[in-house]
């Protein structure tokens, strides 16, 4: 039979409903909330500020330090053990690398910009939601950026190429599933994050990325609107 109709009735290239808001955490230098479907990400930016221990400092440019965390109660039942894991460490790193290309940190030698991403509720696509929230928060913090970053997961569920998989699709058991989180720099169309988990053929991957690009353009508009709505 195959997977020909999505569990929530969306079209293959349709995103889940998105809500984005800037400046949700008052004490932070910049912050944002990004909600896509049932996945909710909060990002708070602190800095640029002094970096210690001193050996981490870079005298040529500031550094970016991201921390991704899923809250213990965020999943679909199983408690996520609090504290860092291999998984969260990896995602923190790819988030950092996805955001770095747009940031101009040359003006802040020896300093650090801290980004904390927390997920109170998750339904797949968490790193993408985290990156979207972090990009809004960084802009809200008044940092100099070449552009925003928009991110979404694309993939293939059995034989359907689709964007923004939810958890039911990601864990579909009737066939092969490929999950490809991707981040775009909207103005130039460059890709700053591309990971892959699962099996997908070249032709489908190309199609998936093209759909992802279009979805990211939509997300980028929502991000910009969120920033402007703050004023």
């Amino acid at each position, binding site marked *: 039979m195959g997977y020909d109709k999505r569990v929530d009735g969306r079209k293959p290239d349709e995103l889940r409903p998105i809500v984005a808001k800037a400046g949700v955490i008052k004490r932070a230098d910049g912050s944002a909330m990004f909600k896509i479907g049932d996945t909710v990400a909060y990002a708070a930016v602190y800095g640029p500020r002094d970096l210690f221990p001193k050996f981490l400092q870079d005298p040529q440019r500031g550094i970016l330090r991201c921390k991704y965390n899923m809250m213990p109660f965020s999943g679909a039942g199983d408690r996520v053990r609090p504290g860092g894991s291999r998984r969260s460490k990896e995602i923190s790193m790819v988030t950092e690398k996805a955001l770095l290309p747009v940031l101009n940190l040359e003006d802040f*030698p020896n300093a650090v910009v801290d980004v904390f991403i927390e997920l109170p509720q998750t339904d797949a696509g968490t790193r993408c939601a985290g990156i979207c929230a972090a990009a809004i928060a960084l802009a809200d913090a008044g940092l100099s950026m070449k*552009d925003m970053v928009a991110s979404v997961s694309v993939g293939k569920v059995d034989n359907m190429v689709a964007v923004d998989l939810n958890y039911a699709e990601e864990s579909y058991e009737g066939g092969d599933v490929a999950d490809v989180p991707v981040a775009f720099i909207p103005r130039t169309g460059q890709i700053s994050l591309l990971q892959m988990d699962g099996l997908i053929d070249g032709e489908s991957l190309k199609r998936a990325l093209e759909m992802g690009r279009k979805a990211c353009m939509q997300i980028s508009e929502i991000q*910009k609107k969120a920033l402007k709505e703050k004023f």
Partner: protein
Amino acid sequence: MGELLVADKSIVVPGEEVAAGMDFLPTEGVYRDGDKLVASRLGLLAVDGRLVKLIPLSGKYLPKRGDVIIGKVTDVTISGWRTDINSAYTAMLSMKDATSEFIARGADLTRYFTFGDYLVTKIVNVTSQNLVDLTMKGPGLRKLSEGRIIAVAPNKVPRIIGKQGSMVSMIKDATGCRIIVGQNGIVWLQGDPDQELVAVSALRKIENESHISGLTDRIKVFLDGEVKRLHLAPSMNAGNDGGSEGGRSEFSEREFQQ
């Protein structure tokens, strides 16, 4: 033949194209990519002839030579004092620049300034690595004693001061407080406690509404209203002399109080 892609004085976000063509020149907060000018931070677009710049709406204070700022002493070293200036970097005040008095070798520097002291100082130098040097030599530069310290957004400081200091003088006149606004967003106020509160709420109002036009008039109306309210309830002043600090502690700015 260049053209603006968004209206002057509108809010732009990073990556937004603001102008096309080679006629416009990018300045602060704007960069050129091909024949387009692109915003590189969140701000208000300001077009001055051919120059396009952004007035930032958020962000940390960047130390600049000649700025008069308020700093807090965080460390006493062999040769001077390290101060927190509400920026990404700390600033050094050397012994030589601190006082014209003779300081003997090995003297206890905390006799002059000690941990937690707030100083009105001037930046004399900022290096490429953002090492900041301060001086206490100059008119009005001194150690602050008593009063209230609050932090406001550094990029709202020009609006708080106003043209030739018009806005801050208006608050001073209305509330009778003494006010020093540091370029780094640290503000010192001293006056009658009730009047201090009025001044603080006026500053917060400026901070929140500075990008909406007609600010001066709104602040004037606000101040008149608040001051009138204080005069109508003179018993409140007398009551507070009895040592009731309850009204004050409601303020979230308390962490910056001395």
